């Protein structure tokens, strides 16, 4: 096993394979950073080209896109308050607050370091404990999965900054949006008003574009000039992107490690995803933090926790795919396709029979995670430059990419209207100081919450006690109660 893993690293020494790794990494950076374009889209676009590629090169490139795409979602979040992907929403909240305080370089370097640590730990888990951990994931029954998603939804509400009632409103609105369209269990349209477009439901891409890109464009329309960012932010040089080790020590290795473990575990669960991983890790970091008041206002700790978790998720997400043949999200579903194209069937037996073939994939994930940290040292000042860019250029570009990107990935004018509608609604919510991240999480988690709830009730003939029937469920509800206690009940006593 160890020799096979080392063989994976040796495969990367081939110059051609290494170039594919670099190419994939840069492609992931571009797609991840631009709102409306995602790592999923980048890998989907790459899929037809993998026919002509050697399997090793194809797998290496896909893994590099996956890792850098998840990381890059946070870059535009920190610099211009628009996350390139949904998983960068928490980082955006903390990172942009730091950016406005003149700590943009520090936020970007901590972001890259956390992503790198999370990515390396996630890849290490994938290499050495994939098989035993996938057996643990198999123990999760439907009510346990419901308990996990329920915990994520509750933490979304209690963690958000400001009024808990407003968080409840926006998460409910997000969950309501997720119910639009064809029911996923019976042949029944819901809230579609007879429209053939609405029957397909609200896709994630227009929702993310609307909530973040369009909303930010409209908010900037209302502001005079971007004076709110401290001027010294723009003086950052390459050396400023080395992490401040004092800050890193303050965050603590334990925060990085624990958040990464949370990311890996959530990544292993089908439907988990980077967004859920970052939210749960963020909530846990806030729960045990000595400075919980900084969360939501530019917390280094919160930023590091969220980023470690969402990049660690990359390693975790590949575990059920390779060991059980279950793709947990859209990216792993496409990786499934890449493997099938080359005659490899993901599932039991793949790792034992084809470890030599698969090992470069693991190595690519780990090396890409290291590249994440190196990339900020090289490109850091250019990332900051995004926030300094002429407003006319920046917002005309964002407007174009948001709208044309929506069309290019859905081929639907209706989805452009959808993005605009959600954007205008999100803007009105922001005017009234409602948080938007819970709404996005509602849209992402809604289908899973409903599916697991109904499936559990069907298999138990409507007995609600099925939700409390296993130690895993009870453990997850206890964790939810602990989050509520520490983040909402105990907090006022210290205030």
């Amino acid at each position, binding site marked *: 096993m160890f020799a096979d893993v080392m063989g994976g690293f040796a495969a990367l020494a081939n110059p051609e394979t290494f170039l594919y790794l670099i190419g994939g990494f840069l492609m992931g950076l571009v797609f991840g950073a631009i709102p409306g374009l995602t790592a999923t889209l980048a890998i989907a676009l790459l899929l037809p080209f993998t026919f002509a590629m050697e399997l090793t090169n194809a797998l290496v490139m896909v893994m590099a896109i996956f890792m850098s795409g998840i990381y890059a979602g946070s870059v535009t979040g920190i610099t211009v308050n628009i996350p390139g992907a949904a998983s960068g929403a928490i980082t955006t909240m903390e990172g942009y607050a730091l950016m406005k305080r003149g700590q943009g370089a520090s936020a970007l370097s901590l972001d890259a370091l956390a992503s790198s640590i999370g990515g390396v730990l996630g890849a290490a888990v994938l290499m050495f404990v994939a098989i035993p951990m996938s057996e643990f994931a198999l123990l999760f029954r439907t009510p346990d999965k419901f308990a996990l998603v329920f915990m994520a939804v509750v933490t979304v509400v209690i963690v958000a900054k*400001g009024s808990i009632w407003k968080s409840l409103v926006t998460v409910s609105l997000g969950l309501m949006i997720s119910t639009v369209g064809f029911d996923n269990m019976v042949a029944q349209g*819901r809230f579609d008003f007879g429209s053939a477009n609405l029957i397909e439901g609200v896709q994630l891409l227009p929702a993310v574009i609307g909530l973040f890109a369009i909303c930010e464009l409209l908010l900037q329309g209302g502001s005079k000039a971007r004076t709110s960012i401290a001027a010294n932010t723009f003086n950052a040089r390459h050396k400023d992107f080395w992490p401040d080790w004092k800050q890193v020590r303050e965050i603590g290795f334990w925060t990085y490690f624990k958040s990464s473990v949370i990311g890996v575990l959530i990544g292993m669960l089908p439907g988990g995803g980077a967004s859920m991983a970052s939210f749960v890790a963020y909530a846990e970091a806030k729960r045990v933090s000595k400075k919980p008041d900084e969360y939501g206002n530019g917390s280094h700790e919160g930023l590091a926790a969220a980023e470690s978790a969402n990049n660690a998720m990359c390693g975790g997400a590949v575990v059920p795919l390779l060991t059980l043949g279950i793709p947990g999200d859209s990216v792993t579903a496409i990786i499934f396709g890449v493997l099938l194209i080359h005659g490899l069937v993901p599932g039991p037996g793949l790792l034992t029979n084809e470890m030599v073939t698969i090992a470069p994939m693991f190595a690519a994930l780990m090396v890409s995670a290291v590249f994440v940290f190196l990339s900020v040292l090289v490109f850091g000042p250019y990332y900051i430059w995004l926030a300094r860019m002429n407003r006319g250029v920046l917002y005309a570009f964002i*407007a174009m990419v948001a709208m044309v990107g929506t069309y290019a990935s859905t081929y639907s004018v209706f989805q452009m209207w959808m993005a605009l509608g959600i954007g205008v609604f999100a803007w009105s919510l922001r005017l009234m100081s409602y948080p938007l991240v819970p709404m996005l999480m509602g849209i992402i988690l809604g289908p899973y919450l409903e599916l697991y709830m109904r499936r559990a009730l069907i298999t138990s003939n409507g007995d609600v006690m099925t939700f409390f029937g296993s130690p895993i469920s009870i453990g997850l509800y206890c964790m939810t109660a602990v989050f509520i206690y520490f983040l909402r009940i105990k907090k006022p006593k210290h205030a």
Partner: protein
Amino acid sequence: MTINRQALFALFILAIDMAYLKQALNLPLPFSSGEPGPSLMPLVLVLTLGIGALGVLVQELRGTADHEDDEDARFSLRTVALIVLTCGFIWAFEPLGYWYDTLLYTFCVAWLFEQERLGPVKAVLTSALIGGGITGVGWLFFVTLFDLFLPQGYF
């Protein structure tokens, strides 16, 4: 006890909740066929949204709400102009095609931001350059590089 804009917005959310409830009641009721059915989750959400909106409303009416205003969020005519422009862009996207529509849209968006810095007349030339550049980059990126389809217009 006064009605402020926050309370009015909470009432607007409650109105959305009622409209959603009306639609949800058109679906088969939960467990009417022995299964939870498609209306269970929507009905639970009607409850949670209602509780959230009522919570905001009660806090506002009692004057106990803790307002943390979003410093970036302000209303302006430029915002309205951006919404109208984006509506026009989407409406004309397929008939006009990518080039003309995007050129016009990016020019107008750039002008809205640039006129504040350069004045309305000087901003015209700069915005035209920005619009042209961004439209070209968009085509290069979406079509040339990634081979995606963008409409060419009806004429």
